[in-house]
């Protein structure tokens, strides 16, 4: 599913919804609200709660993105689902480590490893 107006690309692989950003992204305060709305609507539409968010196309982020992820994680878990993250580059992973959010989120080096862990 790729829509010109969407910022997300979603594919279903063995019951896991793999979500990527549709172009190279800077996840900052300016764009995070719309991305969060789109992700939130997607979560609402899902009956299966296995969601993998790939950071493959993410070049940069700010703390606004971290806040979005926390909010989405809570939303998914309220629906008895699970959120995993993958493909986070070393610079961005460092942001997760500094904020200790690498302990809060289930992060994997690749989509394959993440999907296998559901």
């Amino acid at each position, binding site marked *: 599913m790729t829509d010109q107006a969407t910022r997300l690309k979603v594919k279903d692989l063995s019951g896991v919804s793999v979500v990527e950003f549709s172009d190279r992204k800077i996840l*900052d*305060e*300016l764009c995070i609200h719309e991305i969060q709305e789109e992700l939130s609507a997607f979560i609402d539409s899902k009956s299966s709660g296995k969601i993998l968010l790939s950071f493959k196309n993410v070049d*940069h982020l*700010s*703390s*606004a993105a*971290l*806040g*979005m992820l*926390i*909010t989405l994680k*809570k939303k998914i878990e309220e629906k008895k689902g699970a959120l995993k993250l993958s493909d986070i580059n070393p*610079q961005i992973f460092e*942001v997760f480590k*500094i*904020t*200790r*959010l690498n302990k*809060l989120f289930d992060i994997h080096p690749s989509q394959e490893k993440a999907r296998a862990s559901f």
Partner: protein
Amino acid sequence: MNVGRQQGASESESRPLNTFKEITVDNDLTEAKRPEEAILRDLSAHGYDENTTFAIKLALEEAMTNAFRHGNQCDPDKRITVRYSVTDDRIEIQVCDEGEGFCPGDVPDPTEPGYIDRPHGRGIMLMRAYLDEVEFCSKGCSVRLVKFRKQTP
């Protein structure tokens, strides 16, 4: 707002203001990108590496967001002033809002168990982690950010 020389550590004396460039923008998230773009151009011109660029981009984004949202309370009639100096040995940026100020000491540690799952409150922590100096004026409506060029061994 204290933009004068800092007491104490000799390596962190602020340069005279007439060596700084200044950009004032409306309190708007799109407008807030203009100082970032100008500073990143200067970083590139001075050959700063990708890690430094990432650090400055992140810290400045956090400072501008705080100025926009907390300092200026999202008020479109307010402004943010950014003064910056990029030289061969360091980057110095001051971000000033038109708000009432705050006490940085009142911001809780976002890594503490009661706060780690809150969506906000990590901006200052990230600024301090990625920069060599982060100093708020006594009122709290401006912040001075400094990053020194890392010397290669």
